């Protein structure tokens, strides 16, 4: 039981100290789980991390679920997964209820009016980053542009785009992979 509790507490810390998610949490997990606890090796962590990117959902949570499963099966997975999301639930709920009360303040409205274009710029930048790392062939450029057009112009559900792109990848890139 204390094992399970310690898994929860450790991943609570990971959730608390992760800012932004994804790659930001890798050094924190490495410090807590590999160096301090010695629960898994660096190689295992990297394997879990790359698997987490190929699994649906949030990368930080997926990594937590992998480590929990490896350490303590189902209960371990429950402990790490709940641990990593609990700080968000607490902090965001406090933030959301405070914001609700401050909603009438004109200063808050002005602040968010200024923040929104900044958020747009930040999303553009992370989009360029993903584009550079994942789009390597002309057919992939086409997939990227089509996905954008189908959702932004033709209002198709992103779920349909994800399904079509997966099937397309399975049919087309399996062959091109075999040729190489």
């Amino acid at each position: 039981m204390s094992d399970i509790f310690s898994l929860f507490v450790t991943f609570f810390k990971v959730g608390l100290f992760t800012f932004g998610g994804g790659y930001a949490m890798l050094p924190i997990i490495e410090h807590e789980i590999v160096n301090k606890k010695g629960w898994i090796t660096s190689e295992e962590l990297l394997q879990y991390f790359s698997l987490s990117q190929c699994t649906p959902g949030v990368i930080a949570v997926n990594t937590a679920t992998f480590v929990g499963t490896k350490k303590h099966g189902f209960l371990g997975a429950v402990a790490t997964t709940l641990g990593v999301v609990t700080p968000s639930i607490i902090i965001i709920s406090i933030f959301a209820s405070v914001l609700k009360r401050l909603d009438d303040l004109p200063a808050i409205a002005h602040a968010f009016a200024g923040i929104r274009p900044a958020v747009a710029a930040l999303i553009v930048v992370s989009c360029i980053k993903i584009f550079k790392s994942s789009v390597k062939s002309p057919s992939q450029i086409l997939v990227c542009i089509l996905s954008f057009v189908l959702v932004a112009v033709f209002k198709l559900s992103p779920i349909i785009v994800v399904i079509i792109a997966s099937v397309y990848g399975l049919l087309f890139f399996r062959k091109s992979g075999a040729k190489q």
Partner: protein
Amino acid sequence: MNDILLMCFEFFKTGLFSIGGGLATVPFLFDMSKNHPNWFSSSELADMIAVSESTPGPIGVNMATFAGFKIAGIGGAILATLSLVLPAFTIIFIISKFLSKYSDSKYVTAVFSGLRPAVAGLIATAAYSVFQISVFTDTLSSFKDILPNLQIGNFIIFAVILIALQFKKLKKLHPIIFIFIAAALGVAFKL
């Protein structure tokens, strides 16, 4: 009660189809705001992104918690987050039994060769939505609407931060810094 169940189902779907982490959930949440306008609006969603990037915790989880809170308070926050992580939890529990087979599978590699570029396109749609919300007073229906609806001050913030982020040194700064600067400019110029 039905609304809560529907919300759980929507976040379950989001968790199942959003792949690649970070902002991957955002296009699905925009879709949700279109289908359920009484839950949260797309401009509220833009504010949630700012808060999620400026508070601890993975962005995807923060977004789900925030959206769930908007829909049904603290209970909504908890249920939305659990629904979001449930699909991945189940999948990981299954694949952890044959890990190496999964990661070396040529089928998995092939699927992701098609999927990753699509995710880049989906995140571009999120950028486009937030850009429209933040820089124009009204939703655009044709090209001639662009100039009269353009809010110059907001557009300048967008352009300056986008240009600043092309410099390597500034790129390394935490997004929260840009969010705070933009907030200060918004208050100072009463945007």
